[in-house]
């Protein structure tokens, strides 16, 4: 059997974490290729539906990442995201998804190193967890 390659969807805010991922690129900081980035304007724009969709269509982990509280382009986006995130986490837990599959980080535009580090950690963790239960279920049924 092939080695399990976890798939991660990262929702990153345009001003901070997307820029951090850009910085990781310009600084040639390598990280595992398992992540696919979706650019949103603010982490508070992430609708729980997007996260469900990601898991439903086969993601093993989801990262939502935006600015630190003081950096937000929209003043208090991370606070709004936090509220949404807490509810989302409970819902996913109820659906039988391990808590570690969904992560919320604050990564500023200068923290390319941290972005790469977070991706590495997530990949390691997801490798231990194995494929998402949603994915296993779906593959069994197809």
């Amino acid at each position, binding site marked *: 059997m092939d080695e399990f390659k976890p*798939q991660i*969807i990262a929702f990153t805010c*345009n001003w901070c974490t*997307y*820029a951090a*991922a*850009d910085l*990781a*690129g*310009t600084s*040639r*900081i*390598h*990280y595992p*290729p398992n992540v*696919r*980035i*979706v*650019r*949103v*304007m*603010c982490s*508070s*724009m*992430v*609708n*729980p*539906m*997007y996260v469900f*969709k*990601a898991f439903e*269509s*086969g*993601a093993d982990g989801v990262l939502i990442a935006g600015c630190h509280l003081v950096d937000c*382009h*929209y*003043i*208090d*986006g991370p606070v*709004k995201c936090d509220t*949404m995130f807490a509810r989302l986490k409970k819902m996913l837990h109820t659906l039988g998804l391990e808590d570690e599959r969904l992560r919320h980080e604050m990564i500023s535009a200068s923290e390319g190193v941290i972005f*790469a580090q977070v991706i590495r950690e997530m990949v390691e963790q997801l490798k231990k967890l194995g494929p998402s239960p949603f994915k296993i279920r779906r593959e069994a049924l197809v």
Partner: protein
Amino acid sequence: MEETRIGVYICHCGLNIAGTVDVEEVTNYAATLPSVVVSRDYRYMCSDPGQDLIKNDIKELKLNRVVVASCSPRMHEPTFRKACQDGGLNPYLYEHANIREHCSWVHDDKKVATEKAKDLVRAAIKRVYYHQPLEVKEVPVNPKVLVVGGGIAGMQAALDIANGGHQVYLVEREPSIGGHMIQLDRTFPTLDCSECILTPKMADVGHHPFIELLAYSEVEEVSGSIGQFKVKVKKKARHIDESKCVGCGICEEKCPWKVPSEFEMGLGKRAVVYIPFAQAIPNLATVDVDHCVYIQSNGKKCGACIKFCEAKAITPETLLNQTDQIIEVEVGSIIVATGYDQFDPSVIPQYGYGRYDNVLTGLHFERMTCAAGPTGGKVVLKDGREPENVAIIHCVGSRDQNYHEYCSRVCCMYGLKYAHLIKELTDADVYEFYIDMRCFGEGYEEFYKRLSEEGVNFIRGKVAKVTDVAISDEEKGKLIVVAEDTLLGKLIRVPADMVILCAALEARADADKVASLFTLNRRADGFFLERHVKLDPVATPTDGVFICGCCEGPRDIPDTVAQAEATAAKALSLISKGKITLEAAIANVDETKCLGCGRCEEICTFHAPKVISKNGVMVSELNETLCKGCGACAVVCPTGAMLIRHFTQEEILAQVSALTEV
């Protein structure tokens, strides 16, 4: 419906992308995806020939969607949007895939990187399918400006704008402009007299053809947004006829009732009908309604001012019947310069302020040394004696976890100034109790050095208490300042006749009201929050509203003036542009789905959505000039009525599912 025709362009970026990603394979792959009409690769897509490929294809192949896979959209999205526009396509029918920063530069394995690039390109194609053309709207800028606060900050901003030939409304809540600066005696470190440098500026403001001074007035209501604010200003009744008053001061002289003067910090008295100080602008009398015997007795008692006013500016009519007026003005931008309050040291009981007569604050001392002040410029104790020793206590209420953690920035320097003035005006010994000396501005450190040479005693240590309980003959009849001298490591007791407290500068007591009036945010310390502490220090989260001076935090006069000029530059740049381009990717309400629940209104930091009644139904209405497009409202909307253009649910869902397709 029009057929979707997508053009896909994969950039080599020299070898930056092509070195790690098999560009040809990605290009061929893209060509196989639905709705893709053309898929090309090119060495440098951002070059003119690269952009021409897009422009020509839009025309010749009738493309109505474009995807470019290259570097970060933060770099070249605007370039390719412009190329689309030049080719005749709405710039929002464009999508960007980042296969350099997020792919070729962070991965080594060509096979893996090529697969990832394919995923990113596929997701961009799926997403662009749902893009809609958006219109970039422009709104005109009203060239008039409102300045709130007539201290040095507000005056400077008003003058800069008015000198540029634009109308300014300057609102000041006190009877005269001048702010805290006009109360100061001399300014550090040059020791030039504050009045001498400020009164010419005040006169300029008073006479300027482009400044309409609304003194003794307060802003009541602000509506609208950048470029077109509507402001209601309450002009408080002075109870005199402003058109007739010549500011002769005879009413003040003849008024038999005296109350403590606010301007003199209670050290002197003023009449109930008064001009706050000699150089007041506007030079008009104001009646203190609460203390006026004529008004309080409903015209039965007193009336001295009516009798003596030769200009007939004070009449029974003005005293009894004059009411506040509401003035409405329309402006394009607003500058808030509402200043600070002095910290009230009586909340630190161990320093004895309010209990001991000769414990003063900085502003009291300013009035005392002022030649035109209540003591005629003499440094004297309450009983009229000259002090033999004076203690100056720094950081009262500042740098103190119990009160304000921040440094008030001006106290070290004015403390030094006081020491110099005491040395100049009396024979007293001066003791400065400090935590650290912070003398950071132009000529400040030199001033500190000069004072050390003048024989001032500097004691490093925070004062524990000020007491009048003497334990030796030397201390009898004096105040005793008890502190730890941290350089000697021992407790000391310094007898002093006078103690001056360098009280902190703090946010105005009503800063919360001002904040909600102008939609400003406040920091934990109560001062107004700038948009970015380093790179946007005078803008605020509300477009078109700028802040300067001490309402944003403690600062000295040079910094305040520089900031005020910065706000004027901001306002002038808006005026000279004449119009504002509004962000196109903002929220949009589908009224047919909206239930008027108000959750969008609740979550929006910028007050863009508002639930209104339309034909008897509650529905959310969006002020497009206020919306920044963050998308928080769309997340909380229970019916999906609120969506963010260019980031709609179907677009993002399409992108997400395309990314996880195998």
